[in-house]
């Protein structure tokens, strides 16, 4: 790939992030308060302050492929404490969306990506979340992806305990007008992404 292509492709990510997150990347003056308060920063490959810096410097592709964006728990501490009101949690959301749309999410974090996708497919189908179905679908998709039998059956003992406590319904609730839910999804996103 030619250098100018690389520059233009990654440069176009920043305005997209800014418009999705309704925030200005260049407002960040790198004080590090977001990283200081982040409960996940210690285990991140690229902590929040550096993710923002990568965007400022036009290295968006490295931000989109970071483990960190899928390790983020969306606790909103970064955005709340930013002295420049940069919505760092919103930037994380925008990076996740773009990373998933472009299929560049890191392999190590695929489990989280698969979970979020299974969650949305479940809502698109039912209007409301059916937990049993979600767990089944998520476990099945991660099994297809990684062939891990131990993960497939992990937590299996929780199911009867939840049943005993009447916390699981075998037949989940559904919204009546599920057709409108499907139309809302179709108007918001490319359905093939899920």
């Amino acid at each position, binding site marked *: 790939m030619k250098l100018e292509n690389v520059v233009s492709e990654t440069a176009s990510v920043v305005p997209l992030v800014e418009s*999705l*997150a309704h925030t200005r990347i260049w407002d960040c003056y790198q004080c590090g308060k977001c990283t200081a308060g982040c*409960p*996940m920063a210690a285990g991140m490959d690229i902590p929040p302050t550096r993710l923002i810096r990568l965007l400022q410097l036009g290295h968006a592709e490295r931000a989109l492929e970071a483990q960190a964006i899928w*390790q983020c*728990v*969306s*606790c*909103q*501490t970064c*955005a*709340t404490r930013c002295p420049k009101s940069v*919505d760092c*949690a919103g930037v994380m*959301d*925008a990076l*996740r*969306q773009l990373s*998933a749309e472009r299929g560049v999410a890191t392999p190590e974090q695929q*489990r*989280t990506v*698969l*979970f*979020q*996708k299974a*969650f*949305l497919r479940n*809502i698109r189908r039912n*209007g*409301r*979340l*059916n*937990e049993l179905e979600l*767990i089944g679908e*998520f476990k099945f998709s991660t099994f297809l992806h990684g062939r891990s039998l131990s993960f497939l059956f*992990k*937590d299996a003992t*929780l199911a009867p*305990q*939840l049943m005993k*406590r*009447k*916390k*699981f*319904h075998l037949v*989940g*609730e559904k*919204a*009546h*007008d599920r057709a*409108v*839910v499907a*139309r*809302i*999804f179709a*108007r*918001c*996103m490319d359905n093939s*992404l899920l």
Partner: protein
Amino acid sequence: MNLAYYPGCALHGSSNDYEQSLRACLETLDVHLKEIDDWICCGATAAHSLNQKLSVALPARNLALAEDEGFREMLAPCPMCSMQLLKARKALAEDEALRRSVSEIVELEVRGETQVLNLIQLFETIGLDRLKAAVKAPLGSICAACYYGCLLTRPASVVEFDDCEQPRSMEKILEALGGKTVDWNYRTECCGAGMTMANEQTVLDLSHKILSNAAAHGANCLVVACPMCHVNLDMKQPAIERHYGVRHAMPIYYLSDVVGLALGFKPEALGIDRHFVRKA
């Protein structure tokens, strides 16, 4: 008092014990909930992680449904739902073009007039004096670590509730009911939220720190107002104990559990017997 009720998926699923206790309390306090007809999921973390437009549209449809039923106030006891609803409401109020386009997307006019309350705010609206007057069994044996987690107070510009670093609203309710509370460090730290299934280790690590800090400050229980926090701290507590080789044995109550106990309900009437961690 009549208000709209948006239960959200958790309260009609594995957190139905939360709904059981809040319904018991509110009926006693003469608050009548009308569940929004044909509400849909708010989209939660999955929507705001994968599609920004969807994460506004899904809650916006619920706001419109509540408005169409004529309600000015709506209870959303799950902080994820209430934050999503408030975030959508704010985005639509600030951008008329967006409001019009989202109204078309969700096939209903979204005016954004309905106020969204979390459970703490509802108890505040009912009034601490009224709560105090209704107490039948003061919470003398309770020394609670009130745990707010993330979304009750954050993002502050969206939820506009309490102090986002040093909240006190739950402590005030507990103290009005005759309970004691502790000062501790992890009241607004994250428990791992929706990572329970996809990234369990995160939940074990973060929730272990919360439980340890609460115990170190002398708490004999945690009080939460979030179904996700309850799942991670209660249902996952045995897994945390196994992973770290410790014994926490820390009961986790919903705010409505402790209010209900003070109002004289038996634990079984509130669903407390369906929690994973029992009182020692």
